Each structure stands twice: as C-alpha cells, then as structure tokens.
C-alpha cells in the first residue's frame, strides 16, 4: 500500500484556488493563509518592541536585543521559515529604532551594537533552524494523520453500503469532492458499458469509448492503477480498479481545474488518490463477496421454507382430502344401508373438511402475497367495529362459543386496509378458538391508549409459555405437534403479523402460560384526520 501523504497539502491547494468550493472550506479564506503569518509575525515583533521600550524607559534593561529573541522563535515555531526571517529583519530595525530613539533618555552604546547584533544572529539562527525543522515535522505528521483520517472516513462510508449502484455512486462522489474534478466509473455489464458519474452532466463519448477500450483490452485490463500509456481523451485520466470478484472498473477523472499547485502537492494528491482507489477496489470486491454470500443464504432460507411448505401442504391437503373422499365414497357405495344419522355425519365431514381446505388455500395465497413484500395496503378511514363484525362473520370454529365484543362507541376511525386487517383478525379469532376449550369464552375488546388503539383477542385456553410468546408468530410454528393438535397450517399468526404491520400496526402475544389463556394485542395508530372529521359532521 502507498503511504498516504498530503491530504492537507491537497486541501491547502484546494483552499487557495479562487473557486474555493471544497467541502468545509469557506471561500473567504482563500487569500488569508498566505499573508496572515507575516502579519502575525510583524505583530509579535511590534509587541516585543513595546515591551523593550517599556523596559528601557524604566531602566530595568539596557540591552534590549534579547527581548526580540522570543518573537523570532515564536514566529519560526508557529508560522515557519519566512515569517521568522521577517521577524529577524524587523527585530533589527526595531532594535535600531529603539536604541537611537531621540525621545528616550538613553546612554549611547555605539561600540556594543554590532557585537550584540552578531550574537543575536548567531544565537537565533540555529534556533530558528531547529524550530523550523521541528515545525515541518509536526506539519508532516498532521498531514499524514489527516490523510489517514480522510482515507479511513472514505472506506468507512463505503463499508456501510450494501447496494452496488449506491457504492459506485458514493465512490464517484467522494473522489470528485476531494479532487474537485469530475469522476465517472465505468464497468462492463452484459455487453454494455455501465457508467456511474459523480454528477448528472453528460458523459463525454470519447471518455466512454476510451474506458470501453481499456476494459475490453485483449490482454485484459491493466491490473494496476497507473494511468495507461494509451492516449487519454482531452485532459481525462483513466485508472483501472481490479477487483478479483467483481471484475474491473474504469475510473475516469476529469481535467483538473486550473490553478496554483506545485509539483509536490500534485504528487501528494496522486498518492492519496491511489490509496483511495485501492480502498474503492476493496469495497467493490467486498460487496460482491457479501452479496454472493447473502444470495446463498437467501437461497438456503427459501429452500428451507419451501421444504416446510411442502411438508405442511402434504399433511394439510391430504388429511381433509382423504376425509372427503372417504365420506363421499361411503355415501355412494353404501347408500342403502346407511342410517340417517350416519349419512348426516358423513355429509358434515365433507362440508367441514372442504371448508378447512378452503381456509388452507386462502392461507397459502396470503402467504404468497407476502413474498417479496408484495403487499400494497389500500389504506382508508374506516370503522374498527365494521372490521370486527365482518371478521366474526367470516371466522369459523365459533359454533357454540360465547363471543363477547367490547368496543367503546366513541372509538376513533382508523386508517386501515379493510381486508388485510379483517384477515389478520380472522386468523387471531380462529387461533383463539383452536387453542381453547370448546364453548369457552372469546373476548374481543378495544380501547384508546397512548394515542393508539389497542385491540385484544383473548381466550381462556392453555396459554403460551413465556419463551414462546414471540415464536408463535414464526411461519410453521404450531402450539402443539401437528399430528396430535388442532388442524392448522402454522401460517395464521405469521400472516396476521405481516398484515397488521402492513397497516402500520403491531401485534404481540401476552400470556402467563399454564392454562390462564392468551391475549393477542393489535396496536394501531390513530390518524389525525379522524377526529377532525367527526367534529365536522357532528351536527348533520
């Protein structure tokens, strides 16, 4: 890896450009940094002069040359060699001025002056040299750390991106911001060139063509990111990022903006650029590997789900089908000998099992709607009471049940998809009916709490153990093993949760376990509009 120098050199050169538009650098600072150190330096000398004058006036000190030493050293330390040189010159001048000043009552020390100045120079100059060296090292260290920070920030930003287009776009934009040049990334799709640019301006055809040639070069794309020796289209430079997994990417960098910038700054900028290109290649490669792994993981999950679905289907379709076929053939073949009660029994079986099949098909269809987030809820202002009533009329397994509905008459209207919420509720009601004793009570109650509506479906059945309260919403989860327990696909609650969430709501299970029953609570947001509407229509 190339050692990353020069971020600050780069920024300085950006800052001193007339356009001065680099991120975080106010334009009005453009001319300041050049002259300010000299002003500060002069100011320090002036201050020293004032102090020296004071000391001489009070007679505490007669040889004031020494007073200027700190000024020179400070200038060297803070602002570098040339401001320090200015400070020396000014100190000479100030010294002379002070010692010859007519308004001060001084003693002449003609013979001492040249010697003093000589000592001053001999003492101060090596110090200056040492200080300037030290300062240069500090500046260099700062530059390095700024460059490292900038590189680190760059790779951090890239690391968070999980989508290829966004990653490439971010690379283009980051590079473009740092360089203040246009950046376009090219990669080869299936037979086409895919450009992703840092801005929305037109992509020059010559640049695209050059990138294509580089990417399609018969000897393979040049595997490092030195600019190719092939001719570059007017002022553009094309680099190649070689990512082992993702294939090569051409990075075209537009002509630099005209402006000052010495050879060293350019070289340093080049170093940083190369380091960043390395990082970009790593990021593209990593994303490619990540998505390959992720694809494999999704495939595996899908395969597991498919297996579970097939198992579930073969059990849940075959059982009712066997019952229907058996009953129907019994009726057909033994019609004459069957008593009235037996006939009624067989017919009831056919009917119930067919209804079960129908429910099952409905569940599988709901499930297929869930795949890939294909649910598009049609939200409209609606009455919860209507949905509860419709769900109760559709829910089966409620024969002989004591169903208690407690809805306050002033429940606000909600913004819901009628059918999604109805289905969610049907699934909860049937779930309650399945897992509680026949003829036991099922309660549906709603209330307003914390600016939301809570809708509870409660039964008095077995309840749910604490550690399974969340798991009941998993696909294919069943409260009891399929063979011994109530019939069901194990999909009802998973569908319920997905449909409630599509309505902007939440559903969770509450139970103390151990035969105390279970409550499933749907929480739905209250839209602002509902209250206003009711007020508006109050008097009609």
């Amino acid at each position: 890896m190339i050692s990353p120098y020069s971020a600050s050199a780069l920024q300085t050169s950006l800052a001193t450009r007339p356009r001065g538009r680099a991120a975080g650098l106010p334009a009005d600072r453009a001319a300041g940094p050049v002259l300010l150190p000299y002003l500060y330096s002069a100011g320090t000398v002036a201050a020293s002069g004032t102090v020296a004058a004071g000391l001489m006036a009070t007679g505490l000190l007669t040889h004031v040359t020494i007073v200027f030493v700190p000024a020179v050293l400070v200038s060297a330390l803070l602002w570098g060699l040339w401001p320090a040189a200015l400070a020396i010159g000014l100190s000479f001048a100030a010294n002379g001025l002070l010692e010859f000043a007519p308004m001060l009552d001084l003693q002449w020390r003609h013979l001492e002056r040249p010697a003093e100045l000589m000592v001053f120079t001999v003492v101060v100059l090596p110090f200056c040299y040492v200080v300037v060296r030290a300062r240069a090292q500090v500046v260099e260290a700062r530059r390095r750390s700024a460059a490292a920070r900038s590189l680190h920030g760059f790779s951090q930003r890239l690391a968070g991106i999980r989508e290829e287009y966004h990653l490439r776009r971010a690379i283009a934009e980051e590079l473009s911001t740092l360089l203040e040049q246009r950046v376009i990334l090219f990669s080869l799709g299936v037979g086409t060139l895919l450009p992703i640019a840092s801005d929305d301006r037109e992509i020059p055809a010559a640049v695209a063509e050059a990138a294509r040639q580089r990417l399609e070069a018969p000897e393979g794309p040049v595997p490092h990111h030195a600019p190719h020796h092939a001719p570059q289209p007017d002022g553009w430079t094309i680099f190649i990022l070689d990512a082992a997994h993702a294939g090569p990417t051409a990075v075209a960098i537009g002509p630099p903006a005209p402006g000052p910038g010495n050879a060293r700054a350019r070289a340093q900028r080049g170093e940083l650029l190369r380091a960043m290109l390395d990082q970009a290649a790593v990021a593209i490669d990593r994303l490619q590997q990540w998505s390959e792994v992720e694809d494999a993981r999704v495939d595996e999950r899908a395969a597991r789900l498919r297996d579970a679905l097939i198992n579930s289907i073969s059990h849940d379709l075959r059982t009712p089908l066997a019952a229907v076929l058996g009953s129907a053939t019994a009726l057909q073949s033994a019609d004459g000998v069957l008593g009235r009660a037996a006939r009624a029994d067989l017919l009831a079986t056919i009917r119930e099992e067919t209804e079960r099949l129908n429910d099952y098909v409905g569940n599988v269809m709901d499930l297929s709607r869930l795949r890939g987030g294909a649910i598009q809820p049609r939200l409209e202002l609606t009455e919860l009471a209507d949905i509860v009533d419709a769900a109760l009329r559709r829910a089966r397994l409620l024969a002989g049940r004591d169903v208690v509905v407690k809805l306050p008459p002033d429940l606000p209207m909600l913004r819901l998809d009628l059918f999604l919420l109805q289905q969610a509720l049907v699934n909860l009601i049937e779930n309650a009916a399945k897992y509680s004793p026949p003829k036991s009570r099922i309660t549906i109650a709603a209330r307003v709490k914390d600016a939301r509506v809570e809708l509870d479906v409660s039964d008095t059945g077995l309840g749910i153990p604490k550690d399974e309260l969340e798991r009941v919403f998993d696909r294919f989860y069943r409260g009891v093993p399929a063979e011994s327990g109530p019939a069901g696909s194990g999909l009802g609650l998973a569908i319920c949760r997905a449909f409630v969430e599509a309505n902007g709501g939440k559903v969770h299970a509450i139970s103390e376990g151990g035969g105390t029953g279970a409550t499933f609570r749907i929480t739905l947001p209250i839209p602002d509009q509902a209250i206003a509407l009711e007020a508006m229509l109050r008097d009609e």
Partner: protein
Amino acid sequence: MSEPGLSEHLARILIVDDEPQIRRFLRTALDAHLYAVAETGTGEGGLDLAATWTPDLVVLDLGLPDIDGIEMLRRLREWSAVPVLVLSVRGGEHDKVAALDLGADDFVTKPFGMAEFLARVRAALRRHAQVRPGDAVFAVGGLKLDMARRRLTVDGAEVRLSPKQYRLLNVLAQHAGKVLTHHHLLKEIWGPAHLNDVHYLRIFVRKLRNRIEKDPARPRFLLTELGVGYRLAAPDQFTG
C-alpha cells in the same frame, strides 16, 4: 311468472359460468328445489338465452372466457331488468362493486354453501316479484319504519333521527335485503359531488347504529358488506 306447462317450477333460472363442475352442482341443487334451469359457459350464450328463454333470474360468474361478466351485465341491462345474482371470488371486491353499480341484485362469494345461495336466490326473486309502489311500513325484528309518517320505532320505543340519518335508513329500507354500494348511498344522500367520501357514510352508519342497534358493535339490522357497501336486513335475513 311461469309459462303454462312449466307451472310445477317455481321460477326459471339461467346459469352463466364457464366452469362445468360449478354449473353441474348448481343445476342439481336448483333442480331439486323445483327451479327450471338453463346453463351456458359463455357471455354471448348468456345474452342469447336471456333474450330467447326469458329467465326470471340470472346467476352470473364474473370470470367468463369470451366477454367479461361485467361487460355482459352492462349489455344485458341495456334492455332487461331481470335480477342478476353475481358469483365472485374472495378479494374480488372491486368487481362486486362494479356489478352492483351496474344493477346486479346481489353477490355470493365462492366457495359458498347451498343454503346461503338458495336464500339469495329466493330473496332476489321476491324483491322483483313484489314491485311495491310504496310499502309505507318496513318492519324487521323489533325495528319498524313508517315512511308515510316518517316515524321510527325500535321495540316499540320511538327513535328520533336527524334528517340525513333518516334519509340513509329510508334508502336502505326501500331496498331492504339488497346490498347498496357506497357510491349508491353517497349519491342518494350527499349528491354526486361526494361519491368518494366513504368516511362520511361510515360516520353516519355508526350514528344510526347507535340509535337503532342494541349492540352497535354486533349489528343485526344495518349490516356491513366490507369494502362494498351496506345492507338493511330483510325479514327473512334477520338472524335476531
């Protein structure tokens, strides 16, 4: 209503459905209940039979192979007022509403039980048999609406309604037993400018239920057909 020679039949019913197994069990069940049945699998065939065989009721599946069931209904309604009972599937609310707005009488969602289907058939036939130019009093359960005197009682006690609430109940009572779509009701009560303000209707239905239903959360008179409209229970649909 029946021709001589067919007098043993209650009524003539035309089945338009492209699935033979559905036609088969409908025919079997309707035969057994003494209706005369004709059947066809296409919309064009349905229009022909509606013109030549003059049924008393058409059972129409909305998913037909040649012309859309909705389209067939539109063409049928250009010249015939025969009652139409639509067969639809779960989730086909959009089609149901379109069919009802085009003048279909009622719908049954597949799969359906025979008892429910026969009840809908009887209700549709009855509504058309008694073309009543003003049954001034509508009564179901304990609810009694005297339209001549604009007076409503529930279990003998008079109930006061606002003018709009009364209008809503009146429209529903005139079509008792039939689903009226949101559009239909909005147009009747608020006028054509408010066709899409279904929430107005929902608020008024709630207010009306609060006045007439014992438990507004489990209404017995004013029933919701989710996503389609409302129905005021006819006496034979009333479940107490």
